[in-house]
């Protein structure tokens, strides 16, 4: 039977925490950008201008059809040289974190836009008509009446998606970027204690995600849309 030895974890905690900060940074940036760009995509998708709605539909369907690993590989292997040429950076600069953020942000915005589209559509149509009847224009109607209600209904789904996103950030492993999982793997590999570190990483992810999704469920009960 295997002899567990957890002694390499306490000393590695600062390094693991650095990794966790990278994971959280990527999650936060991708979430914020994803919601902003996702909102724009959702509005384009619902817009009567055909070219806009076609573009948004194409974007969303493309990103939803390919694996996130593939998106990350595109961004890691191809984007750095592209960004370097664009901004004239030196070839050595490490753009993996920026690439990961960009990749996740563009990828997640496709999923966010579907949530937001459903949220906008959940607001009764009569409200838009009422806004127009009151003399508002489209931007005012969206900004003052439709989106605030839509977002209130969507908050639980947006947060659930953020938990999924946080789990997916472990995939930056494919670029050897030291996020929390990457850090745990490195420590385990270095000390020959991969088993313990992998189990530890799983436990940490479980505690964080389970707590977060339990909180989201409670929030959902409290603010159930009328």
């Amino acid at each position, binding site marked *: 039977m295997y002899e567990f030895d957890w002694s390499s974890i306490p000393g590695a905690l600062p390094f693991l925490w650095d990794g966790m900060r990278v994971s959280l940074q990527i999650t936060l940036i991708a979430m914020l950008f994803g919601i902003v760009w996702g909102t724009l995509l959702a509005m384009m998708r619902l817009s009567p201008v055909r070219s806009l709605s076609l573009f948004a539909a194409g974007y969303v369907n493309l990103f939803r059809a390919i*694996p996130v690993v*593939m998106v990350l590989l595109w961004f890691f292997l191809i984007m750095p040289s592209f960004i370097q040429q664009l901004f004239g950076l030196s070839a050595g600069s490490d753009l993996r974190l920026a690439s990961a953020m960009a990749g996740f942000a563009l990828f997640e915005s496709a999923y966010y836009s579907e949530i937001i589209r459903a949220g906008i559509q959940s607001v009764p149509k009569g409200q838009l008509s009422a806004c127009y009847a009151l003399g508002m224009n489209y931007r005012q109607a969206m900004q003052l009446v439709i989106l605030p209600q839509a977002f209130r209904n969507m908050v639980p789904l947006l947060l659930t998606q953020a938990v999924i996103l946080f*789990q997916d950030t472990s995939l930056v492993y494919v670029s050897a970027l030291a996020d929390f999982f990457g850090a745990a793997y490195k420590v385990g590999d270095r000390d020959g204690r991969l*088993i313990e570190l*992998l189990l530890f990483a799983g436990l940490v992810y479980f505690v964080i995600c*389970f707590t977060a*999704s339990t909180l989201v469920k409670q929030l959902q009960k409290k603010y159930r849309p009328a």
Partner: protein
Amino acid sequence: MSYQWNWDVFLQPTAAGDDIYLGWMFSGLKMTIGLSLTAWVVALLLGALVGVLRTVPNRALAGIASGYVELFRNVPLLVQLFIWYFVLPELLPQSLGDAYKQSNPILQQFLASMVCLGLFTSARVAEQVRTGINSLPQGQKNAGLALGFTLAQTYRYVMLPMAFRLVVPPLTSEFLNIFKNSAICSTIGLLELAAQGRQLVDYTAQPYESFVAVTLAYLLLNVLVMGAMKKVEDRIRVPGYLGGK
């Protein structure tokens, strides 16, 4: 940018000389499909069982089933995969672990990937099955029991035939997800589509062609699966229900 496009790269013989690069792509595609389909079978069987258990009026069984779902839903797939592949063989009894480690490495990768994807997806399938069962009118269960069916018979003859049909449309997206998630198995060295794409980059230094090809292959898989599921949904939909005729 001075990138040399060269689409003929797929027709060149590989460095190993046994095939052309297009052949690598096809073998990766076959692996992705084989892995996803076998894992889907695991996911459906386990997911149906766990989903049903979550609805039974027995706290212990429902609690175990709900713990199962939470466990597999709150740990990242990549971490689960590494645990199946690196950790589990060490925790097995010595003789079994050794036999496993001495078996064909491709078989080891495939088994770990299949079990991992299957169990991961089964938790999501279970949620859909539970939702399907809970969406049935309460009266159906009561009517079954009132007619003298046991609880098991009520599930078997009244509720499940209905719930399993209702649950097919939401399962389509899980079926699509299993194909996409299978790309993660490239991290333990399984030569599926994404891994073959990366290998092609290493051997030919033509990243754009390789990635475009792999991306198109995933798009194609997506379209095929959606088409197939549309056919299944049409056959199986319940008249009179939402989306039914």
